C-alpha cells in the first residue's frame, strides 16, 4: 500500500473513533467541559423537567399571534409548525430507527390527499374532521407498513430506493390520476383531480367548531405539535424507543439480544408515515386544497436538512432545525434580506472559525481591500463590468455592494464561470495548508459575493436547493451529529 491508512484521529472530528477506548471513556467529561454561554444554557435546559421544557417552547409560541397583525407572518408560523411536525415524524424513522426513508414526502402527500378526498366536495363525502382524521392516520400507517414490507428483510439501502421510487410514482399518480382507465369501467375515473388537484377542502370541523381563520389553524397546529412532541418524548423513553436506538446503533447486537428487528423497523416506518399523514391533513385544510406540486422532491431535502441540522435523534434539535430552516428559507425570498443573511452568516462563520483574531482581521480587511482594488481596476479597463445596479440595492449595504462587487451589464457566461470556479475554490480550500488557506480565502470570499450578486440572487428557488444540498454534504462531513445531537460513538 503506497499510502498507509491514517490513524483514526486524523480523519476529522466527525469520524467515529473506532476502538479508541480512552476516547469513549472520557466522552461524557469532555462534553461537560465545554464552556461558554451555550454550554450554561444547555445545562440549565437539561435541568428543567420535561413538562417545563415543553412549556418553554409552546407558551411563547402561543402568544405569537397576539404580537402581529399580519396574516402572512401567522402563515409562516403555521408553516414552521407543520415542518416541525414533519421533521419530528422523519426523525422517528431516520433519527431513532436509522432507516433512510426517501418517500416521506409522499406519505405527507398521501395524508393530504386522503383528507381532501374524505372531506371535500370531490366525492361529496364531507366527513367531519374527527372521523376523517383517524381514518387518514390509520391509512397512512397502513401504507407505510405495505411499503416497508418488501424491504423488510433487506438492508437500509433497498428501503431508500423503494421509498424514493414510491415518491416518484406518487407524483406521477396524482398528476395523472384524473383519467384513470380501469378495466371494469368504460369511462376514465377521476380520482385525484390531476394537475389541478382537489380544491375546496373542508375546514377543520372539531365537534361542531369550525376552524375558519388563519389564527385558529395556528393554534390547531400548535396543539398538535405539543401533543406529538409529548407523545414522542414518552415513546423515546419507552421500551420501544430504547429498542429502536439499540437497533440503530448495532442491528446485529440488537438481534442477538432477541430484539425483533424487522418488526421494530416496520413500526418506526409506520409511526413516521402516520405523523406525516396527520400533518398532511392539517396542511390540506390550511391550504383549502391539495395539488401535486405541493409534494415534489425538493421538499424531501428540506426535511432532511432540518433533521440533520438540528441533530437526528434529538427532539429539541429537530424542532430547532425545522424552525430555523423554515424561517431562513422564508427570508431568502427577498433579495435584500437574503443578502443581509448571507453576509451575516459568512461573517459569523469566519468569526467562529478563524483564530486568532489577527488572522480574522487580516482576512476581512484583505477581502474588503481586494474588492475595492478589483472594482477600481475594472472601472478603469472594463467600464461595462461595473455598470449594473444591485438587485434591491437600497440602503448602505446596497451602496457598498455597488462599489465593491463587479456587476457586469450581462453577467451570463461570466457568472457561470464564476460559479464553477467558486465550487472548485471551496473544494480546494479544504485541502490547503493553513497559511495558504488564509491567503486563498480572500479571493474566494470575493468570488462568492460576485456569484451571489450576479447569479444566485436571480434564482432564489434554485439557490435554496443548492444551499440545502451543500449544507447536507458539509454537515455530514464535518458535524454529522448536527447542532444538538450527541456524537455517535462506534464501538467495535
Amino acid at each position, binding site marked *: 500500500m503506497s499510502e498507509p491508512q491514517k490513524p483514526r484521529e486524523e480523519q476529522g472530528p466527525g469520524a467515529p473513533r473506532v476502538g479508541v477506548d480512552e476516547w469513549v471513556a472520557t466522552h461524557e467529561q469532555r462534553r461537560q467541559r465545554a464552556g461558554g454561554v451555550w454550554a450554561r444554557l444547555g445545562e440549565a435546559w437539561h435541568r428543567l423537567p420535561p413538562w417545563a421544557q415543553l412549556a418553554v417552547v409552546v407558551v411563547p409560541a402561543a402568544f405569537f399571534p397576539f404580537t402581529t397583525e399580519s396574516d402572512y407572518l401567522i402563515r409562516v408560523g403555521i408553516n414552521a409548525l407543520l415542518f416541525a411536525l414533519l421533521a419530528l415524524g422523519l426523525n422517528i424513522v431516520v433519527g431513532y430507527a436509522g432507516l433512510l426513508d426517501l418517500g416521506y414526502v409522499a406519505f405527507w402527500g398521501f395524508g393530504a390527499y386522503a383528507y381532501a378526498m374524505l372531506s371535500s366536495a370531490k366525492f361529496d363525502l364531507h366527513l367531519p374532521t374527527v372521523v376523517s382524521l383517524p381514518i387518514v392516520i390509520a391509512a397512512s400507517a397502513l401504507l407505510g407498513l405495505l411499503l416497508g414490507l418488501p424491504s423488510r428483510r433487506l438492508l437500509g439501502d433497498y428501503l431508500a430506493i423503494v421509498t424514493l421510487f414510491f415518491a*416518484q410514482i406518487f407524483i406521477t399518480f396524482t398528476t395523472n390520476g384524473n383519467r384513470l382507465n380501469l378495466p371494469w369501467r368504460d369511462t376514465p375515473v377521476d380520482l385525484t383531480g390531476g394537475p389541478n388537484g382537489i380544491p375546496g377542502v373542508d375546514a377543520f370541523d372539531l365537534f361542531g367548531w369550525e376552524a375558519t381563520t388563519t389564527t385558529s389553524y395556528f393554534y390547531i397546529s400548535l396543539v398538535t405539535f405539543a401533543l406529538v412532541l409529548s407523545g414522542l418524548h414518552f415513546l423515546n423513553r419507552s421500551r420501544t424507543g430504547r429498542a429502536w436506538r439499540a437497533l440503530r446503533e448495532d442491528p446485529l447486537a440488537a438481534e442477538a439480544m432477541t430484539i425483533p428487528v424487522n418488526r421494530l423497523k416496520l413500526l418506526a416506518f409506520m409511526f413516521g408515515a402516520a405523523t406525516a399523514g396527520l400533518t398532511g391533513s392539517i396542511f390540506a385544510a390550511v391550504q383549502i386544497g391539495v395539488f401535486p406540486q405541493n409534494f415534489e422532491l425538493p421538499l424531501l431535502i428540506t426535511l432532511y436538512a432540518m433533521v440533520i441540522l438540528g441533530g437526528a435523534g434529538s427532539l429539541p434539535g429537530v424542532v430547532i432545525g425545522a424552525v430555523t430552516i423554515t424561517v431562513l428559507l422564508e427570508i431568502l425570498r427577498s433579495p435584500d434580506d437574503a443578502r443581509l443573511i448571507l453576509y451575516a452568516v459568512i461573517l459569523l462563520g469566519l468569526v467562529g472559525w478563524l483564530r486568532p483574531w489577527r488572522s480574522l482581521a487580516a482576512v476581512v480587511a484583505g477581502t474588503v481591500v481586494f474588492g475595492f482594488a478589483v472594482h477600481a481596476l475594472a472601472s478603469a479597463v472594463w467600464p461595462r463590468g461595473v455598470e449594473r445596479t444591485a438587485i434591491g440595492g437600497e440602503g448602505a449595504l446596497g451602496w457598498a455592494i455597488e462599489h465593491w462587487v463587479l456587476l457586469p451589464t450581462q453577467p451570463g457566461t461570466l457568472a457561470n464561470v464564476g460559479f*464553477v470556479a467558486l465550487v472548485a475554490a471551496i473544494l480546494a480550500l479544504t485541502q490547503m495548508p493553513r497559511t495558504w488557506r488564509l491567503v486563498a480565502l480572500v479571493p474566494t470570499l470575493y468570488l462568492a459575493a460576485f456569484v451571489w450578486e450576479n447569479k444566485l440572487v436571480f434564482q432564489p428557488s434554485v439557490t435554496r*436547493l443548492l444551499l440545502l*444540498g451543500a449544507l447536507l454534504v458539509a454537515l*455530514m462531513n464535518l458535524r454529522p451529529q448536527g447542532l444538538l445531537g450527541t456524537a455517535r460513538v462506534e464501538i467495535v
Partner: protein
Amino acid sequence: MVEVPLAVNSDFLLLQLVNGLTLGSVYALIALGYSMVYGILKLLNFAHGDVYMMGAFMGYGVLVAFGGPAAPTIPIVLLLTLMFLAAMLGSGLLGVTIERFAYRRLRNAPRIAPLITALGVSFFLQSTALLLFGPRFRSYATFEFLSGGVQVAGIRVAYTRILVIVSAFLLMLALTFLVNRTKLGKAMRAVSYDREAAAMMGIDVDRVIVATFFIGSILAGAAGVMFGLVFFSVFHLMGFTAGLKGFTAAVVGGIGHIPGAMLGGLLIGLAEAFSAGYVSSTFQDLIVFSILVAVMLFRPTGLLGKADIRKV
C-alpha cells in the same frame, strides 16, 4: 389500458424490441456504475444519476462549441468522438471529485451518513445544472448522418440506435475485460470481496475505490450522450429517473454483480419499452417499480446474484 393495439403486429413488436434494447443499453451502462460502487463500498450512490446528467450536458457543450447540431463545423464522426470523449472524461473526473470530497471521510461512519451525503450531492448537482443551463430542454437534434437508417424486417432502425447499442456493447465488453483480465480488475474484485483483507495483501484500497468511481462515472457519461442522441434532448432532471431505473436494473440483475447489471439494464429497458408500447406510457414507471418490488420479495439477491452471507 388505453386503446391497446390488439392486433398483434409483428412490426410493432419488433419496433418495441429495438426501443427496449436501446433504452436497455443506456440503463445497463448506468446500472454498472451503481453496481460497481455498491460492490466495493456498499454505498448507494444517489448522485450517480446526476453524474450521467452532467455527462449529457458536457456532450452537449462540445456539440454547441463546434457549431451545434444544425451546422457542425467539423466532420461528424470526429464530432461524435469528441462528444463521447469529453462527456466520459468529464463525468469520470466529476465522479472522482465527488468521492474525494463527499464520501471519503465517511468510509467508516454509520451507513446512513454517506447515504444522506449522496442525497445532498445529488440535489447539489441538479440545482447546479439548473443554474448553469436553465430549465429548458436542450436539443441534441439528429445529424444528417445519423438521421438515416437501415431496413430490418419491415421496420427502419435509425443509425443512432445502432450506434448506441453497438457502442454500449463494446463498452461493456471492455469493462468485462478490465475486471476479469487486468491487475486493476483483480484488485477491484478483491476489495469488493473483503476490503480489509485486500488492504492487508498490499492493495491500495483508496486507489481502487477512486478507479471504481472513475470507471463507473465514465460509463454514466457515455450513457448520457447516448440518451441525448436517441431522445434528442437533455434536461436537468433527466438524471433522477434514469438513476432510479439504473438502480432498479442493478438490483434486478443482482447488485455488485457486473453481468447482472447488464442483464438487468436490458430487462428494465425492454420492460419499459413494451409497457409504453402496449399498456400506457404514463404508468411505465409503475411497471418498473412493480418489477423492483417483485424481485425484492421473491429473489432479493437478484437474478444472477448469489446469496450474501453476512459475516459477523
